């Protein structure tokens, strides 16, 4: 079943002066449980695409259906609420609220959702454990390494039980060792918990872990390749 369907998606910047087609008529669908990487040269439209999928920016034309909801038709308030309940985000860096500890950052999302305290506590610990940070629960972001911060961000993205997680170059600011650990965690969550990940990267080693690779160029899909991976 498709959880995301985008049709005729375009985004034009500076339409009146020097129009830039960041996305140009993209049709694409994503299924539950995917582990998909969006690649392409700088300026090809990866960030734009992920922003559209996450409802962080509105398209110039086209439709984005997420679980039968056309998110382009939502008001700003509805969209924020929709994100809270359906989409997890991991950004390139500085994802976390600096004044909150790792545990509070994760819990924060569930608080916004109105989850009760007992459930929050339990799930927060489980999630931090699943990203291998059970010894850092009371640490604030500035005392965590970049890789650890990204892992907390993954735990936070999972906290809301989203339909999918979007990650725009999550490893861009990490050393290769940390990048590898982060990818392994994401992969494991995808494999074991069927969490859907859609991420972008410039790193070929990260691309290699993906099961589906969508390549963009000049705002258009150049290729869309799925590989079957042993054991999946």
């Amino acid at each position: 079943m498709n959880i995301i369907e985008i049709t005729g998606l375009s985004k034009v910047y500076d339409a009146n002066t020097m129009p830039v087609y960041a996305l140009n008529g993209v049709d694409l669908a994503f299924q539950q449980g995917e582990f998909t990487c969006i690649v392409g040269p700088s300026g090809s439209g990866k960030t734009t695409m992920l922003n559209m999928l996450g409802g962080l920016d509105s398209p110039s034309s086209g439709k984005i259906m997420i679980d039968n909801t056309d998110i382009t038709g939502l008001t700003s308030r509805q969209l924020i609420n929709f994100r809270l309940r359906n989409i997890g985000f991991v950004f390139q860096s500085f994802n976390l609220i600096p004044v909150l500890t790792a545990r509070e950052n994760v819990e924060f999302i569930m608080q916004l959702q109105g989850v009760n305290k007992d459930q929050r506590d339990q799930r927060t610990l489980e999630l931090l454990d699943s990203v291998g940070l059970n010894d850092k629960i009371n640490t604030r972001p500035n005392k965590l390494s970049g890789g650890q911060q990204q892992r907390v961000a993954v735990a936070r993205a999972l906290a809301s039980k989203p339909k999918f997680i979007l990650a725009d170059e999550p490893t861009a600011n990490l050393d290769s060792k940390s990048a590898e650990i982060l990818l392994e965690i994401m992969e494991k969550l995808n494999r074991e918990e069927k969490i859907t990940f859609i991420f972008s990267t410039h790193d070929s080693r990260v691309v290699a872990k993906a099961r589906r690779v969508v390549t963009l160029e000049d705002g258009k899909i150049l290729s869309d390749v799925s590989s079957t991976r042993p054991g999946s």
Partner: protein
Amino acid sequence: MNNIRLAWRNIWRNKRRTLLTAASVFLAIFLALIVRSLQIGWFDNLSDIVIQSYSGHIQIHKKGYWDDRDINNSMVFNDSVLAVVKSVKNVDKTVPRLEYFALSSFGKQTKGVMLAGTDPAREDALTKLSAKVVRGRYLEPRGKGILVSQGLASFLGLTAGDTLVLIGQGFHGVSAAGKYPVTGIVHFPSPVLDNQMVYMNLPAAQDFFSADDRITSLSVTLKNPEEINSTRDALQRRVDGGKFEVMRWDEMMVEIMQQLKVKTAGGKIIIAILYMIVGFGVFGTVIMMTNERTREFGVIVSVGMQKSRLAFILVLEMILIGLTGLLSGVAAAMPIMLYFKFNPLHLWGNMAQAFISYGIEPLMPLALKSDFIITNVITVILIVFVTCIYPVRRIFTLNVAEALHK
């Protein structure tokens, strides 16, 4: 993590900035309160002196008397008039007076005087005239005994026990003349009063001026001076408005009021400047706080916090900083105001001399009243709210995708 806790943690991200901002608010409210307290204390002190040494809170005259203080502008005063005045709830004490000029003569000396006929007991209740007696006795309710002010007495060369001759013009131009035994000498600190006052009881003055049952003014004090306007209006309604004028003390003392207003204007300008400086200081902090955190706001809204809540947290942060400064400022000013309310400042130099020459003790108590404290607290809170307009707007117009790129 509730909003307040989040806001509280956020403001301590930059301790120095928060403390500096709070300190500027502290200083502003502290100085503003002290300045206002001084001014209002000074003002109230002088008002009390004027009210208690002469005018009362309100005076009733025949219409037109205050502009032309002539014996022919006197009015009839009797128990029924008094009953009408007393029927107004807030009215406390009343003092009827008949005042007009006369010529005094003793031995070879002659001098113009202000002759005041008054009810001895009621006069004393309002102005404590008996306490000013330096020789002899205070007035009696009956008889012809008079009080002469000390400066006048020494000019004429008389003392208690002597007899003063008074000559003048009475009601409707009738000539007035009489011999009056001096029963006491009173001293006024104000040279103007000390050189010209003669007091006698009201019936004696009415007799002298051939003005039976007449007075020139009825001074009224109030139980609650705050309600002076409504009381004046009530009095104006009860007495015949076509025949009488009912004046607030400050409407009568126009010149003194003018001077007081000029003096307090300077203080208000100082306070306005203080608040402007603080306003810009707080605004600077708000701008820095907002701009540094644009990306963070982007993340927070992305992951699902409504902008309204984020804006609320930011306003809370500013309120917390503002309140820290505000409450500590009020807390610091309070004991100072309290102390100097009960232990008035001693004035010195020219100011003290000026006070003494008007017969006023050169003391200045500070005022401690809830109204000006509340006004200043509200002003500061408003300033803080106004500075919050900027970040609130920034948050509501935040473009999440762009903010994430910062």
